[in-house]
């Protein structure tokens, strides 16, 4: 097995692996979008002066952050179908689990971002008669997100790696696709080395981007 390193097998399975990578990227992208949207809402609730909202948000975040991601995926794949009487499907259980899970982490990041915007900015908006949502939308969130871009991206890189967990609900992401080829062709070394290289390149490029953006923002 360690005898000859067969690069042909990698080339041959590229189309199959590419499909897997597309799924990984799709899950990451949608997970970020949904997670940021839900996370923003949770952050605003957490900072709300209405006790019900802040309590709900705090409970949600603490609860989700106390369970492993794979458990949330199982909930949606196995338990939710029992409750609603029909299957959720692999893709949607994974996606919903990612969004629910990421929202908890993003909301803490976004909360810090919102709090980093000076109080006077809100006053300035209020003083000109803007309402709560207008102030968030036009004044606070744009500034908050600008400060948060690097850390949100870092979280996105982690999510990209975490998408490999979908093998538990038999989705063919990049990792699963690599594993399938590896097992079927008996080429474990080649496939797992290649998979590692791909993850490294994508995540390292992401980290570099984070570094550059951080510098840009610090300027």
């Amino acid at each position, binding site marked *: 097995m360690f005898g000859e390193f067969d690069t042909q097998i990698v080339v041959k399975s590229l189309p199959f692996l590419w499909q897997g990578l597309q799924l990984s990227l799709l899950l990451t992208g949608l997970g970020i979008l949904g997670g940021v949207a839900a996370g923003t809402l949770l952050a605003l609730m957490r900072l709300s002066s209405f006790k019900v909202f802040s309590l709900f948000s705090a409970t949600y975040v603490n609860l989700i952050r106390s369970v492993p991601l794979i458990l949330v995926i199982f909930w949606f794949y196995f338990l939710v179908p029992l409750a609603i009487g029909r299957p959720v499907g692999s893709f949607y259980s994974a996606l919903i689990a990612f969004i629910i899970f990421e929202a908890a982490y993003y909301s803490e990041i976004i909360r810090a971002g919102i709090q980093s915007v*000076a109080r*006077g900015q809100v*006053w*300035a908006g209020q*003083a*000109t*008669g*803007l*309402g709560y949502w*207008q102030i968030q939308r036009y004044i606070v969130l744009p500034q908050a997100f600008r400060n948060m871009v690097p850390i949100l991206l870092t979280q996105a890189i982690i999510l990209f790696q975490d998408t490999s967990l979908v093998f538990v609900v038999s989705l063919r992401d990049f990792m699963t696709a690599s594993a399938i080829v590896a097992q079927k062709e008996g080429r474990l070394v080649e496939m797992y080395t290649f998979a590692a290289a791909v993850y490294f390149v994508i995540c390292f490029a992401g980290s570099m981007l984070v570094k550059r953006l951080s510098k840009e923002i610090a300027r």
Partner: protein
Amino acid sequence: MITIDHISKWYGKFQVLADCSTGIERGEVVVVCGPSGSGKSTLIKCVNGLEPVQEGAIRVNDVAVTDAGTNMARLRSQIGMVFQHFELYPHMSVLNNICLAQEKVLNRSREEARAKARSLLQRIDLSDQADKYPGQLSGGQQQRVAIARALAMDPIAMLFDEPTSALDPEMINEVLDVMVELATEGMTMMVVTHEMGFARKVADRVIFMDEGRIVEDAPTEEFFNTPRSDRAQAFLAKILQH
């Protein structure tokens, strides 16, 4: 136009405003001064409800700021406010800073808002800075833009919260000049400031605060020439000795 009626306010157990009462007539310019921590900035923020009060009532143009049912956004859109640290939106151009509330609150069209912004920028002599970002302007320029942003809403009164305290000395006058011009045009103004020269020049009345109380509330000449309380005398002696 503005009536402040026996208001008190606490931060926890600490009382920041104690039974303050005063009023501002249409077209009047009132300067509020006093040592730091005397509650003057808090008082002016109560006038448009940025800070809530626990006791008493404030009315602006016969609308009660302190009533729960009042449409605060509508009321605030009629009162301009200028802050110590300018509070321009750093992610928007100067022009957009002045246009935002015009479009979103007054529902003016983009063209209308821009035209208004440009005419105000011309008035404060910053026409050539319209497309710059606040961070590219000097402090004095930023504060003039902040005044323009407030004026763009066609306010019935203007509140100034220490508008020159964060400025380098050489930039104070360019801001005061704009304020003097406003005052002479008949704008109703409440100004928290230590600029006694400005007070002498345009204020109709001066309010002196100390430890959350309004200690003196007198016509400008009277306040400077014959301050009644010891504390106001001591304050004036300190601030005017140069």
